[in-house]
């Protein structure tokens, strides 16, 4: 039986190539992401251990405010000069170098714009000489207060040269420096990875980056000869107590690299999620291929049953086939994954200028490749195998063995599973906690399976309606009839396409709804004529000099300018955003805030107002007190003086300007501008822009421009998701090709007959193309319907977060339908050529 199976497998190898390809692509994606993140992870290890090579013990201040990466940047903590002296006095310490290093030093390039970072920090640090692998490439280190050195990465990006006068933005407004040196790192590197670095003299670094003279962020300790780093670490720890993190250099390197790796593993999980979608779609394809093959082999299977094969042997023969395909696809997919992973790692390393560690094949990649590749194939083949085993021996003698089975059972189970899925989604959106994600995931999965099971029932009416569009020609009519003749096959092929389209539509619907909701609220709520705000920039809250405020108010045509300062704070031990405003009544007016309780007058010292949602959550009311800890400064008690109604675009704690000195960036990051009656808006704006010349990150925008820019990020996210889901779509299109190719094969005689009675080659191709287009458009329609449903569910679930409008992105959906039709045409090319090439004679020849 095994030999017969393998022989028949080889005989049909072409038919199986496409379904194998689907598994291969999925496996490639899975193992590729493991290889990529493994190589990058080890590269980070190498980079940080070389940076820490000369540090025996590292003493680091605990972050002042520690938040997860998703919530923003942690605020660095500080060590005092006294701590350095204490450490230096510990026996066995040869030297303790104080290090000042904080994100947020932005150099203004020769083009007058801030040198942008795509994500890595822009460190401002003190010059500690050529230590830690640092090597001067040009000039010297800074010795005077107005001198800086930058790393090669930054020098190249900013096109600055030694001797240039350079503007640098820090936690303070722009200051001018002379560039006196350019440095790199051991091994000819331009920097430590893609990091930008500005080195000041120590007092300047302390003043500009930390706002605290004499403070450090860490101490790099060199042990005296013969002192064990671990012993020294313990000695320092006992001396300093629990206030600081004390690690050996190696531990510190591992810890820093660990932070990057946790980001990488998040990235890896995202990639694996998309791979999962692709494999889920691949399952449909394999299921369909095996179903068709089993149907075509009915007589052969019946014959083997008549000759004495047991049901188990028949199942076995199909499963062995699946196993062989799965194994082959896994091996090839793993190989392709290593290649793709290596290529992406190379690109990523070049892009971020880190030294790429050797490419390895982690065990996880190998295990997941085989588990996923073989698992998916075998599971998908199980159903067709069982069906094959049910072929009665008498079928060998019958002319047409497979009558159309009724769809009742399928429809009922589809409705039940779909309803369960929808229920799980509804329940998941309504509940909270760890289970939510799994509920939603399971719900979406069940919905997909349910709709897939329902799709054969939907196929007949939908396909017949769709087909009318093409029925003006005979080939079109024949194509439509063909696509309607095996509803299961059409449906499952379309369902594979549905998955990707549904996810894209769902995400798009959610983003559009969020966009529309926010825009709708903001359009009515925003009463400011102009908004001054900074372009989002990683690790930095762009600000402008508060000394400009009076000059802004003096610009002709300007009515009021209300500034807002922002920073993170710990409020009752919870990380939270704190805002400080110069004039709360003006903000209330400009943002149409509504009072709930207390007073919305400008908060005095020790007073704070809060929105009703935060108040409810934290159990606060007017008169209750909260403990507020800002990045700089000690915990202080504030009293709630007022509560306002949370606006969809505005909420949180609002202080008076007494908190500003405690903020890391003690400058305004927003300003709401009202024009005077009858003012020349354009002139007023130009006036403001002229004042902001030293703050190139700040933009003066009207409401529309501001919203467009802020909401533009949703469009980028959508684009990314669409690209990543593209793989699932590609696999679904492979499925369409496969189904058509198998159908063409199955209908060889019919096609021969049509050719014999006068159907031209072109018309034959048209017929196949219509069949393909009907399938893909049906799939897109299903996907759009499910996607809108998913999007609506999410919008409903996030109603509390301000999503109050469901916006269906009709233009995008029109585009998806057009793209679906185009994919259908594309998918039809090969099968259509094959159909057109059918030799009439062999097609109609007797058996």
């Amino acid at each position, binding site marked *: 039986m095994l030999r017969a199976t393998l022989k028949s497998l080889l005989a049909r190898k072409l038919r199986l190539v496409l379904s194998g390809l689907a598994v291969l692509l999925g496996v490639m994606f899975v193992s590729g992401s493991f290889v990529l993140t493994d190589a990058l992870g080890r590269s980070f290890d190498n980079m940080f251990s070389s940076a820490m090579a000369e540090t025996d013990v590292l003493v680091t201040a605990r972050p002042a405010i520690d938040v997860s990466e998703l919530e923003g940047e942690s605020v660095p903590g500080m060590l005092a000069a006294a701590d350095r002296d204490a450490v230096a006095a510990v026996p066995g310490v040869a030297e303790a170098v104080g290090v000042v290093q904080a994100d947020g030093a932005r150099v203004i390039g020769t083009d007058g714009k801030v040198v942008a970072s795509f994500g890595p920090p822009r460190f401002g640090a003190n010059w500690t000489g050529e230590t830690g692998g640092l090597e001067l490439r040009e000039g010297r280190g800074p010795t005077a207060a107005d001198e800086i050195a930058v790393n090669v990465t930054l020098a190249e990006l900013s096109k600055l040269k030694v001797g240039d006068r350079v503007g640098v933005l820090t936690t303070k407004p722009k200051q001018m420096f002379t560039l006196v040196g350019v440095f790199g790192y051991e091994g000819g590197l331009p920097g430590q990875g893609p990091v930008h670095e500005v080195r000041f003299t120590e007092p300047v670094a302390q003043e500009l980056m930390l706002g605290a003279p004499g403070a450090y962020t860490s101490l790099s300790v060199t042990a005296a000869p013969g002192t064990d780093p671990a012993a020294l670490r313990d000695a320092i720890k006992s001396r300093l107590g629990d206030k600081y993190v004390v690690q050996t250099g190696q531990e510190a390197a591992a810890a820093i690299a660990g932070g990057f790796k946790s980001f990488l593993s998040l990235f890896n999980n995202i990639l694996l999620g998309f791979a999962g979608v692709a494999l889920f779609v691949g399952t449909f394809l394999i299921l369909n291929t095996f179903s068709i093959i089993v149907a075509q082999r009915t007589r052969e299977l019946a014959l083997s049953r008549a000759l004495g094969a047991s049901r188990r042997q028949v199942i076995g023969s199909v499963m062995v086939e699946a196993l062989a395909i799965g194994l082959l696809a896994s091996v090839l997919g793993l190989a392709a994954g290593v290649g793709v992973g290596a290529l992406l790692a190379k690109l990523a390393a070049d892009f971020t200028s880190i030294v790429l560690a050797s490419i390895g094949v982690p065990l996880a990649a190998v295990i997941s490749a085989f588990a996923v590749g073989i698992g998916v194939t075998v599971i998908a083949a199980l159903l067709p195998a069982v069906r094959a085993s049910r072929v009665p021996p008498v079928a060998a003698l019958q002319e047409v063995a497979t009558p159309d089975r009724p769809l009742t059972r399928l429809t009922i189970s589809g409705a039940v599973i779909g309803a369960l899925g929808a229920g799980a989604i509804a329940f998941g959106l309504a509940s909270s906690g760890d289970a939510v994600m799994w509920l939603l995931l399971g719900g979406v999965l069940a919905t997909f399976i349910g709709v897939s099971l329902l799709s054969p029932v939907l196929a007949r009416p939908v396909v017949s309606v769709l087909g009318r569009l093409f029925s003006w020609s*005979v080939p079109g009519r*024949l194509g439509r009839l063909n696509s309607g*003749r095996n509803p299961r096959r059409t449906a499952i092929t379309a369902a594979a396409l549905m998955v990707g389209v549904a996810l894209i539509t769902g995400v798009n619907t959610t983003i559009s709804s969020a966009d529309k909701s926010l825009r709708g609220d903001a359009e009515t709520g925003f009463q400011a004529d102009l908004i001054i705000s900074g372009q989002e920039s990683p690790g930095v809250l762009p600000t402008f000099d508060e000394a400009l405020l009076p000059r802004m108010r003096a610009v002709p045509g300007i009515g009021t300018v209300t500034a807002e300062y922002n920073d993170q704070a710990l409020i009752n031990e919870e990380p939270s955003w704190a805002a400080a405003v110069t004039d709360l009544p003006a903000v209330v007016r400009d943002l149409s805030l509504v009072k709930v309780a207390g007073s919305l007058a400008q908060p005095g010292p020790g007073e704070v107002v809060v929105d009703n949602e935060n108040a409810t959550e934290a159990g606060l009311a007017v008169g209750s007190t909260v403990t507020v800890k800002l990045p700089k400064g000690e915990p202080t008690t504030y009293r709630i003086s007022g509560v306002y109604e949370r606006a969809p675009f505005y909420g949180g704690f609002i202080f008076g300007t007494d908190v500003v000195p405690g903020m890391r960036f003690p400058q305004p990051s927003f300003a709401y501008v009202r024009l005077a009656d009858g003012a020349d808006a354009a002139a007023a704006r130009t006036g403001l822009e002229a004042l902001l010349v030293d703050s190139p990150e700040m933009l003066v925008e009207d409401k529309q421009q501001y919203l467009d820019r802020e909401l533009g990020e949703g469009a980028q996210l959508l684009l990314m998701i669409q690209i990543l889901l593209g793989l699932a779509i590609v696999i679904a299109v492979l499925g369409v090709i496969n189904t058509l190719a198998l159908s063409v094969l199955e209908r060889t005689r*019919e096609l021969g007959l049509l*050719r014999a*009675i*006068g159907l*031209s080659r072109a018309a034959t191709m048209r017929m196949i193309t219509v069949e393909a287009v009907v399938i893909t458009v049906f799939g897109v329609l299903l996907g759009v319907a499910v996607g809108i449903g998913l999007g609506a569910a999410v919008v409903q679930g996030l109603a509390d977060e301000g999503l109050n409008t469901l916006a269906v992105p009709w233009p995008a959906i029109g585009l998806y339908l057009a793209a679906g039709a185009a994919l259908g045409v594309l998918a039809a090319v090969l099968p259509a050529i094959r159909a057109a090439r059918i030799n*009439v*004679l062999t097609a109609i020849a007797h058996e």
Partner: protein
Amino acid sequence: MTTAAPPLTRQRAETSAARASQVWKVYGTGEAQVVALRGVDVELERGRFTAIMGPSGSGKSTLMHCLAGLDSVSRGQVFVGDTEVTGLSDAGLTRLRREKIGFIFQQFNLLPTLTAEENILLPLAIAGRKADPQWFKTVIETVGLGDRLGHRPSQLSGGQQQRVACARALVSRPEVVFADEPTGNLDSRSGAEVLGFLRRSVTEYGQTIVMVTHDAVAASYADRVIFLADGQIVAELTAPTPERVLDTLKSLDRPAPLGTDL
């Protein structure tokens, strides 16, 4: 090999519905070479019912396929009406099939997705032509399918399916209908119905029919029977009866020198 002179072609075209001139068909090359037709000359008269017979491997099906333009010839010429089939492009062959040829195959004659009526009208629909309602009615009445037109092939018996196929071949009034063992899969009663119908369409409506068969009874419905053996025409009968056909077939089984005068 001789090339037919143009005037001769014209003259013959007026009387013949299809014609083969010195047709050779060779499959494969070298050692594996098989000669299926060895210089066959045959003329099929208009308005007549011709049967082609011969033992398996005699080349009878090949001859019909070549005459119908389904298969290419290695040498020689084939005409349907006044159109030379040999050398036509795929598009030309498609047009030929639409305009001049009707087919009836042994099986797989009908599209399962279409009703009987749609199947009958399919060649016309493909060619973008309308059926002559009078003629359509006549054909339907002759084949006796009046009440079955809305049925799909799976709801029809084998004999009914073949009658639908006959109606389809005739409805466009082609120059010639090629029937390849049209009764091969039918019981004798259904077969007789189909053959009777083909006979009538020749007698009453002047249709030209060429039929390949190995059944002497089926061949006896024809006006003329051509016998093939080893790729050559070896005998011919006019006004055949089953007995005479069988006798001729038996005589062919005797090892006779090939190419002798018949």
